């Protein structure tokens, strides 16, 4: 057991845990943020995607000790229902989720993509999103929603200027 400090969604959390515990279980069961999901445990499905310093990582294979004192963002830190991120807004407009279980991970991958590439092509979306499995088969809507989010981001940028 070890005392580890995590910075999750801008807040510092100190936990006492097995340093080898994957970040996924630390976030879900120790910190108590349930939005990040368990799908495979071997970085095959993307359901557990969170951001480490803004970049998407698979929390199910990331030992918690390796991310001590680094900035972690989970789905709860992206936006809330009263302050939606444009990606979440687009997800609602395109009615993407069915069961919804994989969607936290899908959104985390999409947010990371748009951060570095605000106007991705279909090929770039393929590249960024092929690590996220959706058994309900919402892929066409995910693609449309990413394009929609890209438009929303541009509109937001214009308004802010």
């Amino acid at each position, binding site marked *: 057991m070890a005392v580890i400090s995590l910075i999750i969604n801008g807040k510092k959390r100190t936990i006492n845990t097995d340093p080898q515990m994957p970040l996924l279980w630390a976030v879900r069961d120790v910190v108590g943020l349930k939005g990040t999901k368990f*799908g495979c445990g071997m970085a095959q499905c993307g359901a557990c995607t969170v951001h480490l310093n803004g970049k998407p990582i698979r929390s199910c294979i990331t030992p918690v000790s390796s991310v001590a004192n680094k900035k972690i963002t989970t789905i*709860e830190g992206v936006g809330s*229902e009263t302050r939606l991120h444009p990606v979440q807004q687009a997800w*609602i407009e395109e009615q993407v989720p069915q069961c919804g279980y994989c969607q936290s991970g899908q959104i985390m991958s999409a947010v990371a993509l748009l951060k570095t590439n605000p106007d991705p092509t279909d090929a770039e979306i393929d590249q960024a999103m092929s690590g996220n499995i959706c058994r*309900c*088969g*919402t892929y066409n809507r995910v693609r449309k929603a990413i394009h929609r989010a890209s438009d929303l981001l541009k509109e937001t940028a214009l308004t802010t200027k």
Partner: protein
Amino acid sequence: MNRRAFLKAGSLTVSSLVIGVNSAEAGTGLVNLSEQMAGKALVSLEVSPLVILENTGKIILMAHKPEIGQGTFQSMPLIVAEELEVSLDQVEIRQAMADKKFGNMGVGGSYSVRGEWANLRKAGAAAREMLTQAAAKTWNVPVDECYAKDGKIFHKPSGKSLPYGALTEIAKTIDVPKEPKLKDAKDFRLVGKPSKRPDIPAKVTGRAKFGIDAEVPGMLYASVERAPVMQATVKSFDDTATRKMPGVRHVLKAERKMYKNTFQGVAVLADSYWAALQGRRALKIDWDNGPHAAFNSTDITTRFKELAKTDGHVDTSKGNFDEAFAGAARKLEAEYELPFAAHAPMEPQNCLASVKGDTVEIWTSTQLPDDVQKETAKYLAIPPENVTVHVMFVGGGFGRRLFLDQVMEAVYLSKQVGRPVKVVWTREDDMAGGPFRPATYSLLRAGFDAANTPVAFQHKVVAPSINDTQFGSKDPAKRQDDGAMEGLKEAPYEIPNLTYNNIFADVPVPMGWWRAVYSATTCFAHESFVDEMAHAVGQDPLAFRLNLIGKNVRMKNLLRFLRDQSGWEKPLPAGWGKGVAFWQFFAGQAGHVVYVSKTDKGVKIEKIIAAVDCGTAVNPDNVRSQIEGGTVMGLTAALKSALTFDEGRARQTNFHDYQMLRLNETPPIEVHILPSSESPIGVGEPGLPPAAPALANAVFAATGKRIRKLPFDINDLG
């Protein structure tokens, strides 16, 4: 909120009108239960629990089916709201907990909307009529001068109005109409128009709570090392290393009851899931692998092929197939092989159970909340009302969560240790644990006369029985199941001499209902072979099908609609091919046209056009979603991994070797809904069966290669 909590919360300030229809009872008539409520603090009218009107103005519509992604959390309350004359933003949709007052709470067979359509409308209409009468009484005016709109009753001549909340008290004194007048479809405001699902905001912010997210104070996490071979038993185990690990609290033999079978394992219970998992990995177990340690897919295929030579049970017969086939001028015969499959929902199986004395509280992702209640009660020999079932959002069902073994496992462990226990399966547990979609093997024959008209047709289906592996008898004479013939019975092709044979195949592995059940495999064989027939006589495959359809006007219309929407008759670019397939079965009916283009060694799917006849489309956008999803699941089964067995166990264990179609591999899918004012029929499953045969038929059209075994490699057709 359960009934007790509702009464408690409402007893001081809230007067409620509870109305609805209990679909489980033999009669679906509306009953005034106000008598039963007499003597309680809350004076209210309860007809059944679906519609709750409070005098505060709050309108609560109960979602009495689990939301597994199919959209009933919205579509069912929407139907009530339509008749009640309220908009969806005026109501609060509340997930119901398991309770017999809700009747059948299960979701399966694409049944929810088609099964509850009439009852839901009646519930909304009855409430509307009672509120209208209450207003007329209040104003002392004729009832036909009053009408309902936007949550208010209006008096037409004077223009005055009262909100529903203000009428609740008086409405309680009015008899529930037995046959309330339903709205004319032309007056629908909500039904038939795309509307946004209220569960989606929670699902994009991480707030939606699935079974796996449930927790209670003092609970332990469990991970179970499962029998490597189906039906293996624990001889002994050594937990010395496990017990030394931090956080591990208990190690014990586990049991998991899945209908007639009970499977064994060794459970590690710990303070955290990670600790339970680490403890499990340190176990040393000596298994008795039992009689099925040699079970494997190669032998199964050989056996199925042999069985296909027999006639089994003749399920459907017209004319004289044998004679007509023997005398046919042209004959065609082919065999099709379809594999076992895993459901692989994204949320692995899990359950949190808390057994305290003779009561149990359960939180889980299930398709059958009322069965969870009944089966748990039976398992522990306690009354069903002692079992509280919290219905959580479900991270994918696909039929897997029509099985309650994950619940029984958690209940068993909680009872043994006297604490709440949350069992979470690993992906490997989920993938290899079954139950599995049955593999099927089809032998088809067709005979044509000298004018190339089909005169004889046979489809033999070799299939393991889901019912037999789950509920069946050990008596060989009773081991027959025509469930595998679903869909064939509805096949619209009229050929004068025809037989459908069902050949029972015994397997030592539990089989399960998988999205579209047997149609997921038999449609591939049937619709591919009909395509072979069309090509054998040099006819356009779609026109050939149209010519073969007799009395089934609905399917004929669907195929014509698909032809027109897909641009079937337009010329194709060089190197392209197109394929068609369609299917009608218990869940509903749909069809696909797939366009492919030739690549170096394979094909690329250019686009897919799907058409569905679902009767009235309650929420057309959600109908499209379901057909898109069914199509993707059909393509996944056609192109990705088979579930195979070796040495008595499933060989595939996770998404690396049991692969899913991914975003970069998914073609554009257009969904067209046949305009219809018929009652709704299913949409959850019908999008699946025709997708694979339409694709394989397109592959043949483009390349001349006929696919008779799934899955196949789209990039290398060999």
